[in-house]
């Protein structure tokens, strides 16, 4: 809201949190970690995009999607299609019966590049598709569901079914999608090898930069009147409607935004790991993405980012040292977050750490530069989910 002076905002308490995250991601981690570990953090970061989207969609607007993997996957597949075409030059695929098409197509007797692959020769088209394909699907789902006022549990289950459908389709249509193996063996991005350490480190910084861009967009939306209406909607949907708002349009917009964030995450994921496969589309990864968000704090954008980083780091750490224990830990994490601290890490931070900060600030006799309308209250209270089953 009062962002007339960006510098002033950066020095506010909220701005400092963003600075701290930037410092951590852009300076501390690259210095502290070897390229191998940094690449892993880069992979986790791509999930943070999904988490930001879920914070907006689930935390702020009360729409729980169990199908974010679909959008993550679509973004990732768009990028993978571009990279695969780049890797499938007629020279590199000369031994195939049809040179110049991706190898898996050749194995499946596809003799011609399908029409929907054609535009992915263009990088600018691919960049647009990364945003628009997930956005468009979200729009279609959103229009169909929100106009009919499907919400809450029903929405969650239907998105889950969609994730299931898409997985079966991708696996079944292997001539066009690479099937269960996915689209693999991606090597270069416009001639630039994405496999070297330098490339991975560069991609890491790109991911950090794009993440902050998305964070700022999300924050801007959240702090505009739009954000207040989302909050109002979660609270009293009918009152918003009878205040003259087209509630469905607002839900569709935020759902599309979340889908696009997920799509960006997916595209960056493909670049980071060098392939894309249906195992990131289905039900299980989609639910895990919700956990990142729940653990970080479903009402807090930064919480979502930390949640994605921590859960994934814990997953790697645990499964390296005690593979047997990881599912127990993950399960307990779910239950614990929901039962004991529904606002996640962000909620704990606000309750236990922020008062300390306050005391410190007062100690230094610097008046806390609290903005006039702080979001603290919104995020702190255990808001009831007004997401009960609504039937029209």
């Amino acid at each position, binding site marked *: 809201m009062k962002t007339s002076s960006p510098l002033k905002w950066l020095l506010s308490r909220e701005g400092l949190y963003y600075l701290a995250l930037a410092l951590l991601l852009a300076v501390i981690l690259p210095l502290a970690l070897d390229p191998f570990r940094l690449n892993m953090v880069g992979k986790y970061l791509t999930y943070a995009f999904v988490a930001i989207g879920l914070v907006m969609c689930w935390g702020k607007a009360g729409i729980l999607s169990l199908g974010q993997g679909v959008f993550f996957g679509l973004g990732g597949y768009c990028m993978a299609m571009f990279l695969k075409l780049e890797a499938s030059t007629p020279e590199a695929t000369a031994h195939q019966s049809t040179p110049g098409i991706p190898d898996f197509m050749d194995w499946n007797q596809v003799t011609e590049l399908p029409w929907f692959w054609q535009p992915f020769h263009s990088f600018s088209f691919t960049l647009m598709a990364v945003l628009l394909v997930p956005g468009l699907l979200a729009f279609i789902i959103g229009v169909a569901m929100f106009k009919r006022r499907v919400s809450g549990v029903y929405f969650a289950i239907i998105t889950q079914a969609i994730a299931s459908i898409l997985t079966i389709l991708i696996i079944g249509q292997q001539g066009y999608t690479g099937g269960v193996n996915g689209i693999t063996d991606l090597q270069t991005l416009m001639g630039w090898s994405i496999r070297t350490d330098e490339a991975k480190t560069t991609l890491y910084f790109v991911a950090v930069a794009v993440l902050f861009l998305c964070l700022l967009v999300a924050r801007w*939306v959240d702090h505009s*009147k*739009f954000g*207040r209406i989302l909050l*109002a909607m979660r*609270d009293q949907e009918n009152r918003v*409607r009878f205040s*003259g708002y087209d509630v469905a349009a*607002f839900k569709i917009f935020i759902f599309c935004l979340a889908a696009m964030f997920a799509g960006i995450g997916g595209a960056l994921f493909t670049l980071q790991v060098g392939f894309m496969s249906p195992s990131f589309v289905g039900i299980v990864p989609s639910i895990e993405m919700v956990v990142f968000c729940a653990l970080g704090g479903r009402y807090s954008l930064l919480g979502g980012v930390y949640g994605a980083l921590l859960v994934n780091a814990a997953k790697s750490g645990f499964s390296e040292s005690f593979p047997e224990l990881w599912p127990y830990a993950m399960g307990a994490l779910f239950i614990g977050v929901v039962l004991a601290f529904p606002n996640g890490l962000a909620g704990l931070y606000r309750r236990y750490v922020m008062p300390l900060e306050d005391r410190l600030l007062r100690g230094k006799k610097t008046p806390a530069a609290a903005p006039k309308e702080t979001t603290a209250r919104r995020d702190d209270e255990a*808001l009831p989910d007004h997401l009960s089953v609504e039937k029209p």
Partner: protein
Amino acid sequence: MNKDDFLLSVEGLTVSFDGFKAVDDLSFYLEPQEIRVIIGPNGAGKTTVLDLICGKTRATAGSIRFRGKELTKMKEHQIVHAGVGRKFQNPSVFEDLTVFENLEVSYPMGHTVMGSLAFKRDAAVIEAVESVAHTIFLQDLLAEPAGLLSHGQKQWLEIGMLLIQKPALLMLDEPVAGMSVAERKKTADLLRVITRDHTVLVIEHDMQFVGDIADRVTVMHQGKVLSEGSIDHVKNDPRVIEVYLGH
């Protein structure tokens, strides 16, 4: 009088839930600047009539014309933009937002997705909010979260949220229910102020209060109009007496 000369004309309005006709072939007309009170025993279909007008419930048959527009085909938010404001029986305000923000959300600007993203809190907004807050006795509580208000204050806030939309027709569902005597009196004052430049449709049980404010009264029973006229007229209508005093 041509029916489009009325502000609101309801004709043959019917809605049935699984065969049960909650509103049955109902017709009534509202003139501009009129204050109409709907009374009737529980289950008479009063709230359903408001639901039908504001689009919350879809009519099975009949028409609702408002300033020449057919409301039965419109979406809720379009009906609001056409100039109909509705207050619910239970106060429904946004408890997580401040009083200021509650009123601001209702301010008739930035109601589209893009509009709300581009919305700026300029001087005109602040002035409109403060002026309405004054009218509804909440000028000192603008920074409070609405969740902390008393029951009566929430009712006022909701009325304020309607006022700031500048609707041509205000519909209030039991605005004084659950209020203390003092609050009730203040609300009556508030309504009198409002009615200076709004048409108001009120559901109310408190006959004292009805007598205070009503131009005309419509009595509903079993989804139909039982009687209509001045408060004295309906009070003396034998059918009304029978319905209220019972068989």
